[in-house]
């Protein structure tokens, strides 16, 4: 294959690697931006090298791009498109994804979206300052602030491209899962990881189009003289928007459209992680996943309920208070399937004396961080409490613990786990262990104090805590020591990730060779015939004979039964010990 053919490939494994590399680049950029933000908050006079002092609009631009890059280009690409392209076909026994050309197209569209987003920094006015949520009229009127001109247009274009790419990729995932399963791979035998990808893809198909529609409407408001989101008599920077006539648009409409997309979006980010955690915990505990069918149902329930919750971002935004109560109840309701998953994880590892390999450590870390971040959800779900905590650092702590830490731990677990499948080598356990512990400590050290800052009332998106006039200045200045601690922890946390990069780079060349199934996994991707480093010919008939995670001593003395091992006579006549009551 020529070099060009290798780059613009329709092979799902190459596309998966491309997505993961894109996500890795994005997370590096996003993390750097967040460190600049944190340093500026605590040392406002610090000059960014090669740039100069960080002005308030620069800070807001950092916030905007940080949020956009992390949520879209890291947490929507890597867990969903990245790992599913690598592993999904093998996990269900398919040769490839359903639409390989569309798969490649969606990656290149995503890459283009990233380029466009990054370019927004270099256009006149700079990057937008309206946050990843882009509320109008701030985002609808180019003169409302620096960066809201060309920068905002680039941001909108980037997200539009991303939405299209993501939709195409999700359609591919859905059709692959529904139609390309091999013989014997029934819905109930699908690994929970696949169920996670499936539900996330369903949510993507529904949600991203609404974002695209909202972006189109906002674009029209900005350039075509319409007033979908601009109210009558809006006076921005001395310019009265009477060009829209007396017609009244509604800024709240954007909030509804955006959050109708925005809330499923965060579930898209976490669902694959929920699935992979269940599977990895079971694998390393040599147990079945406790309550497998319930786990499937809860995955679907989280997906379904996730569409009904968007109003909880709008409790104090001008939403009808009765609607706020309704959204509050549905938000509390989603705590139940999430708790069911936590209970299953706890039960799966209970008295199992698991093998503490690095993927297991990160899965356990996922459980811990998911509990920590998830439990503040029911607090924020109560409108009366949200009245105090909305847009404070309490909210920042909540979503960072779940998305920035738990979801990332899921990605790390997946990387350490599937690295041998992709490269035939193992990543270093020693480095992995150091990475895990330092990251876990750094995560808690950075984000738990943020809850305290939020309880004290520190708002989000504030470019400075010092030099602020009035009583507010006194209040904010008191929070600087706490913020200093958070910044030190964040620097520590970010530095610890260098261990991962070092481990990754080193193990590619000098990692110890792995056997074809080093983790004693039962899922189909570890079948020797599907392993790119395995020896068997690729034309063997593939069939699945049982659910995954059947870790029981068989009469013939096997420690476990992978999904692909055929039924033998001995298995059906002997007694088998079950870890859980059959469902």
């Amino acid at each position, binding site marked *: 294959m020529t070099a060009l053919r290798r780059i613009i490939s329709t092979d799902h494994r190459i596309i998966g690697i491309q997505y993961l590399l894109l996500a890795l680049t994005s997370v590096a950029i996003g993390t750097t931006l967040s460190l600049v933000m944190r340093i500026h908050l605590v040392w406002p006079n610090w000059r960014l090298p090669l740039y100069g002092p960080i002005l308030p609009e620069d800070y807001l631009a950092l916030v905007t791009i940080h949020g956009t890059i992390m949520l879209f280009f890291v947490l929507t690409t890597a867990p969903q498109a990245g790992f599913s392209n690598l592993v999904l076909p093998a996990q269900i026994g398919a040769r490839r994804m359903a639409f390989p050309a569309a798969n490649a197209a969606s990656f290149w569209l995503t890459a283009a979206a990233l380029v466009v987003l990054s370019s927004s920094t270099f256009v006149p006015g700079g990057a937008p300052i309206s946050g990843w949520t882009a509320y109008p009229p701030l985002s609808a009127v180019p003169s409302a602030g620096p960066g809201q001109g060309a920068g905002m247009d680039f941001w909108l274009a980037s997200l539009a491209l991303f939405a299209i790419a993501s939709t195409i990729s999700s359609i591919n995932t859905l059709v692959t899962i529904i139609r390309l399963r091999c013989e014997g791979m029934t819905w109930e035998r699908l690994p929970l990881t696949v169920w996670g990808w499936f539900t996330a893809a369903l949510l993507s198909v529904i949600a991203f189009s609404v974002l695209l529609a909202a972006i189109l409407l906002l674009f029209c408001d900005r350039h075509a003289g319409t007033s979908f989101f601009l109210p009558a008599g809006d006076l921005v920077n001395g310019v009265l928007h009477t060009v829209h006539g007396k017609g*009244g648009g509604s800024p709240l409409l954007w909030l509804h459209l955006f959050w109708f997309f925005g809330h499923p979006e965060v579930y898209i980010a976490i669902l694959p992680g929920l699935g992979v955690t269940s599977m990895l915990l079971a694998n390393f505990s040599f147990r079945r996943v406790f309550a497998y069918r319930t786990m499937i149902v809860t995955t679907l329930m989280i997906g379904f309920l996730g569409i009904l919750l968007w109003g909880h971002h709008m409790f104090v935004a001008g939403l009808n208070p009765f609607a706020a109560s309704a959204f509050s109840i549905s938000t509390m309701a989603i705590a139940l399937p999430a708790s069911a998953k936590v209970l299953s994880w706890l039960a799966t590892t209970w008295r199992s004396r698991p093998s503490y390999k690095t993927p297991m450590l990160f899965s356990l870390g996922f459980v811990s961080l998911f509990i920590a971040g998830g439990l503040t959800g029911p607090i924020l779900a109560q409108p009366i409490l949200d009245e105090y905590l909305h847009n404070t650092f309490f909210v920042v702590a909540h979503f960072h613990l779940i998305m920035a830490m738990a979801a990332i731990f899921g990605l790390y677990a997946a990387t350490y786990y599937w690295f041998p499948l992709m490269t035939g080598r193992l990543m270093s356990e020693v480095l992995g262990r150091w990475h895990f512990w330092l990251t876990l400590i750094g995560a808690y050290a950075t984000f738990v104090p943020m809850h305290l800052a939020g309880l004290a009332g520190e708002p989000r998106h504030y470019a400075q805590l010092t030099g602020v006039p009035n009583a507010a200045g006194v209040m904010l200045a008191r929070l600087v020591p706490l913020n200093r601690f958070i910044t030190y922890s964040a620097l520590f946390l970010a530095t610890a990730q260098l261990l991962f990069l070092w481990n990754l780079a080193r193990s590619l060349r000098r990692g110890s060779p792995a056997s074809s199934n080093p983790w004693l996994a039962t899922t189909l991707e570890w079948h020797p015939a599907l392993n790119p480093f395995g020896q068997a010919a690729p034309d063997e008939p593939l069939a699945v004979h049982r659910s995954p995670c059947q870790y029981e001593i068989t009469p013939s003395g096997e420690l476990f039964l992978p999904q692909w091992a055929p039924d033998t006579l001995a298995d059906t006549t002997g007694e088998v010990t079950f870890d859980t009551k059959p469902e």
Partner: protein
Amino acid sequence: MPAIITPNKTDQDRKRHLEDHDNGAGRRPPTDKRTGGGGDNDNWSGGPSRRGPHERLNRYRMGIFFALASDLMFFVAIVSTFFVNQSTGHIDAYNHYINDWFPTTIPPILWLNTAVLLISSATMEFARRTMFQENDVMDEWLGLGKPITRRAIPWLSATIALGLLFLAGQWTAWKQLALQGVFFKTSQSSHFFYLITGVHAFHLFLGIAGLIAAFVGLYVSRQLENRQILVDCAAWYWHTMGILWIFLFTLLVFFQ
């Protein structure tokens, strides 16, 4: 007719289409006779077996289905914006509640366009069905001429022509409104008129591109199955755009 029937050339191009008719069992018959090898024990999905002559077609149909579902959400968002803006007034300085929704009159040519689009759906359906007539499918698969393709081409061309006619009619409607001084940014309702008809026209434009691709594919593609898939998927997209237009048109005519 020669007594020897030469197999279709496409069967020899095995190397490039490894996954055709191969669910992972190496083109052998399914080992599990109960399930038909489709992976569904006891056939719980209840439908026709996934193996069989329409396996790839169903895969592409499902892809189109999900794409259309996603597209539908796009229109749902725009239509809900329509209803919200229609009922959103404001309180002016004199404490009066004002709702400035002035409906935009529909240019009558839109009725003609609707009829054209419905007829084009009919011709599209004729084209689609000729692609699947069994006797002729057999002949074409064996390489005995291309009766399917020959019969489908006029219907497909008619659909493309009618589609272009529809787009021309929409363009005329916009021109007529412009002559009356009603532009995109004239009023709230005109925002929606142009936006809804414009977005739908853009989708139809993509549909025509798909139809042209199917048309070209009828000549260029060497596998009957590919030709069937191209026409079939274009047809489902086209029908959906037609039904969507009926809904949007009803919205503009009766709900402004």
